[in-house]
């Protein structure tokens, strides 16, 4: 292996992995071209081949120093990959959930199973998903923090759901317990199943909102993304588990539920009922997250102001980020529109 290959190999090993394999190859090709050009110039100036290459490598600088320069580019590219990958995935999730929601009769307005209604639902939820994901553009920091909280709480929700469903099945299978006692225990389990992740989510969102030294829009975006990830993960896990366990749940648990007790198809009715809750959660959690994060940030700033830790004049929104609040405003308006439609549909 000659000097050039050694240098390129060293550079390859030091370049940040976040750049991606193809991009790293492009960089290495560019450096190889540069070194060959530089060495050719050295040869033209009268140097021997080895000396010319050695001088070119020397001028190029240490691979570690060069790799440091690419660090930020790598981070930005990673964020872009997350954005690009997450957007269509989440929009598909929302659209799929929207279609499913409309299909089940326990959800308000679902009795109108027309193509137009299906399309309207898909457009509403797909558009909602798009607006929510548009907040990804606010900041990488918001995306990372919000997604971390959302995923963590989503996984917590999934765990409590699994435990709750298993316990409910076991509870109703037990003989010797009255329907009233078992029903009351199921109620308590359901409260814990929802309450525990909800409390965790509220706590984490407030914490993330308050501890960031960032502008208000970024903070609000963290809340939106946290709410969205938490609700998407919880919804998908709830739908999946209810569908997989539907036969057992219908046999042991759902037939005692007064909501769907007399329905022709208990599983369909119960899953529809669950979907109604999930649809509401999907709509409300991002909005609630935005408010929580913003409120905690404002409280935190107030505390700082009062304790004179920092001058209040310096606690200002970064000028470049003011315009980024627009997607959040659009999201809020859309949410209000969807909620209004739901209320109107209920009366209708």
């Amino acid at each position, binding site marked *: 292996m000659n000097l050039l290959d050694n240098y390129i190999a060293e550079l390859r090993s030091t370049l940040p992995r976040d750049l991606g394999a193809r991009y790293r190859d*492009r*960089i290495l*090709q*560019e*450096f190889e*071209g*540069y070194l*060959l*050009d*530089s060495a050719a*110039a050295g040869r033209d100036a009268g140097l021997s081949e080895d000396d010319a290459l050695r001088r070119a490598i020397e*001028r*190029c*600088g*240490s*691979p570690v*120093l*060069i790799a440091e*320069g*690419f660090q*930020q*580019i790598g981070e*930005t*590219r990673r964020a872009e990959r997350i954005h690009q990958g997450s957007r269509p995935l989440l929009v598909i999730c929302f659209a799929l959930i929207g279609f499913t929601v409309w299909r089940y009769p326990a959800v308000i307005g679902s009795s109108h199973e027309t193509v137009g209604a299906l399309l309207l639902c898909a457009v509403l939820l797909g558009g909602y998903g798009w607006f929510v994901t548009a907040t990804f553009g606010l900041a990488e920091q918001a995306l990372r923090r919000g997604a971390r909280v959302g995923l963590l709480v989503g996984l917590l929700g999934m765990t409590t759901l699994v435990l709750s469903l298993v316990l409910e099945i076991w509870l109703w299978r037990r003989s010797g317990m009255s329907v009233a006692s078992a029903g009351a225990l199921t109620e308590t389990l359901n409260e814990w199943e929802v309450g525990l992740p909800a409390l965790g989510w509220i706590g984490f969102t407030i914490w993330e909102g308050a501890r960031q030294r960032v502008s208000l829009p970024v903070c609000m975006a963290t809340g939106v993304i946290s709410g969205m990830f938490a609700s998407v993960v919880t919804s998908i896990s709830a739908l999946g588990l209810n569908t997989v366990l539907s036969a057992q749940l219908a046999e042991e648990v759902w037939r005692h539920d007064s909501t769907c007790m007399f329905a022709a198809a208990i599983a369909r009715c119960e899953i529809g009922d669950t979907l109604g809750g999930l649809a509401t959660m999907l709509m409300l959690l991002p909005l609630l997250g935005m408010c929580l994060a913003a409120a905690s940030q404002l409280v935190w700033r107030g505390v700082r102001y009062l304790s004179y830790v920092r001058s209040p004049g310096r606690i200002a929104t970064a000028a470049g980020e003011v315009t980024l609040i627009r997607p959040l405003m659009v999201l809020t308006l859309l949410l209000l529109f969807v909620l209004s439609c739901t209320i109107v549909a209920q009366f209708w």
Partner: protein
Amino acid sequence: MPSHDYTQRLKGHLDLLLLALLQAGPLHGYAIIERLRLLSDNTFDLPDGTIYPALHRLEQARLLTSWWSDETARRRRLYALTTEGRAVLADGRQEWQTFSRGVEAILFGESAGS
């Protein structure tokens, strides 16, 4: 003043200098580096390899665009200014003129007047 101080100062203006070097037309990495060295009369002792992250950063910011050229025996990546890059360069020039006029007025104004 030691030469490395110029290099440190250059870092804050490197992006603008690269945009300016590309104003005449597309160039590949080695040509940009050589032109920077030639036009600055070797004032800046910057490792050549550090120019590439700056070029990539400018491309990521959509101020530059790049493509592979197979016109010569060796494949080279050419860089060119985008419309946005031209606008940023024009703004940067304006800002630099204002800034340098201000600095020069203070540094040399008094002695020039006396």
